[in-house]
């Protein structure tokens, strides 16, 4: 490769990585700042962490967000997997265009529109059938499932499209019924994709501010809503401490999950190789 060009490429790459990571590194750095004014260094201290955990508001918001994220991830994984299966394996069916449109639209739909439209639906439902009697946990969870399942469906679709159908065809040739093929062959093969979808749904839900603030009601404050109400007025050292914890937990989680998946992939490749060698 041309040397001038590779210098340009490498420096852009370095700039890009620095651009993505320096803000987060500084956020973590200033969480250990003694001074109340965030960017002015006043010595090392962990007092903001202590202060953070003394606040019952933070605990309540964290608990609510974790509950919503867990329920959301389970439902979104189920619904998204079903949708992905239907789109890849059912061929052409009536209403397919509408269905695939409704699956990919939530990925790019501006959150203000999704939030507003769902709130209007919930208000109408309340006046028409009396449910939901109050907005909060249930309405936020439903809203989150609706966009999370789209992400899961995309993951499942790409896994299914990239998956060789040999095993499924072999099972069918040996007389397995389509439902049996699904439960015994396809779903186990899809498990890593479903796990990735679950994790993504979980974090998407933990991260959502706009849709949740539209469809929530009085008394239900999720963690992003709490963070937002505090940082709108400026920088706050306790939020830096909270951010540090979130970033570290997520980074460790992703690294561990990535490592496990990589090892599984290697193991599977090894298995395949051994089977291929043993087969005459």
């Amino acid at each position, binding site marked *: 490769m041309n040397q001038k*060009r590779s210098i340009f490429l490498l420096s852009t790459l370095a700039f*890009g990585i620095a*651009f*993505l990571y320096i803000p987060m590194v500084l*956020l973590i750095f200033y969480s250990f700042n003694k001074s109340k004014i965030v960017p002015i260094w006043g010595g090392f201290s962990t007092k903001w962490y202590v202060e953070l955990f003394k606040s019952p508001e933070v605990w309540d918001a964290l608990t609510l967000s974790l509950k919503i994220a867990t329920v959301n991830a389970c439902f979104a994984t189920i619904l998204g997997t079903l949708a992905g299966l*239907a789109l*890849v394996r059912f061929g052409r069916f009536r209403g397919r265009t509408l269905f695939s449109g409704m*699956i990919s639209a939530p990925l790019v739909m501006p959150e203000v529109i999704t939030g507003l439209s769902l709130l209007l639906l919930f208000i109408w439902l309340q006046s028409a059938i009396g449910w939901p009697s109050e907005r909060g946990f249930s309405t936020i969870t439903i809203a989150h499932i*609706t966009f999370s399942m789209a992400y899961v469906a995309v993951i499942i679709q790409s896994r299914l499209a990239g998956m060789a159908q040999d095993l499924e065809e072999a099972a069918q040739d040996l007389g397995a019924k389509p439902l049996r093929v699904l439960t015994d062959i396809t779903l186990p093969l899809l498990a890593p994709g479903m796990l990735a979808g679950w994790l993504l749904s979980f974090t998407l839900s933990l991260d959502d501010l706009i849709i949740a603030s539209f469809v929530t009601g009085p008394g239900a404050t999720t963690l992003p809503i709490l963070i937002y109400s505090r940082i709108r007025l400026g920088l706050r050292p306790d939020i830096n401490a909270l951010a540090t914890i979130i970033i570290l937990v997520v980074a460790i989680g992703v690294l561990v999950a990535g490592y496990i998946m990589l090892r599984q992939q290697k193991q599977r490749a090894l298995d395949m190789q051994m089977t291929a060698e043993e087969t005459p």
Partner: protein
Amino acid sequence: MSTPAEEVVAIGEATLKDRILNRLTRLLQDQWKLLVLGIPYAWLLLFFLAPFFFVLKISLAETTIASPPYTPLVEWVDEGIMHVRVVIDNYAYLWEDDLYVNTYLNSLVISVTSTILCLLLGYPIAYAIVRSSHTVKHILLLLIILPFWTSFLLRVYAWMGLLADQGTINDLLIALGIIDEPIRMLYTTFAVYVGIVYTYVPFMILPLYANMEKLDWELLEAAADLGAKPMTTFFTITLPATSPGILAGSLLVFIPATGEYVIPDLLGGGNVLMIGRVLYNEFNANIDWPVASAVAIALLLLLVLPMMLYQHIQAKETENP
């Protein structure tokens, strides 16, 4: 021992039983498919598609002081006489008020410019990743994806600390003696650009990377061997071959950036007008539901073509990967 006649009956019964059983399993199989498709379909119809009709409906109503704060479209005046009131005042209001028209145009300018900036930054990064060795490639991809998983809100918040008058960048520049007075960066359009590019550049890099991975690199080498200048090779081979990635990445940045709320609110303050922020404020601060709904419909009209294009690419991608 059974007589031949009984045997025939038994065989007949068996085939009949088999037939019924077959019919049942086939029915179950059909039902099963219907269930797999029907559950997510029904969910999306109810919680994704139906809500838009409420937005449309309320955008055609009038604001009143009531709960909910809008007039009904359909009124039963007398027994069985239906009275439909459709008000397009909200749309006329948006069109006539300079604030809304400017906001609309300003959002477009900001999102188009941000998309171009993301492309200029993301393209060389994606290229560098594709050209690196196997292990390095995986580490770099992980580094690009990792920010996805951490809180978007907190990453935007991090820039408030960098760009503030007494923030890290100004402090550094003053300490180095480059400037005497802090430069105002937070609560400006510049800050909004930084925020959008920062948030959305991974959405540009990943589709570009996926596209470049499939590129025929031997073609490029052949062009070089035949004496083509690097620039010529880039514009005649690389750029056209990566255009699907450019399009997908650009749509993934442009569409959500146009409706962005958090970034203009936290980094732009009151100085940067964007349509998502206006919608949010009309609804939550002014409690003008019909105008907020009309803004939502206007935003949707702006984005419906790019969204359909994205959906088309997405569908093609899954059909022949």
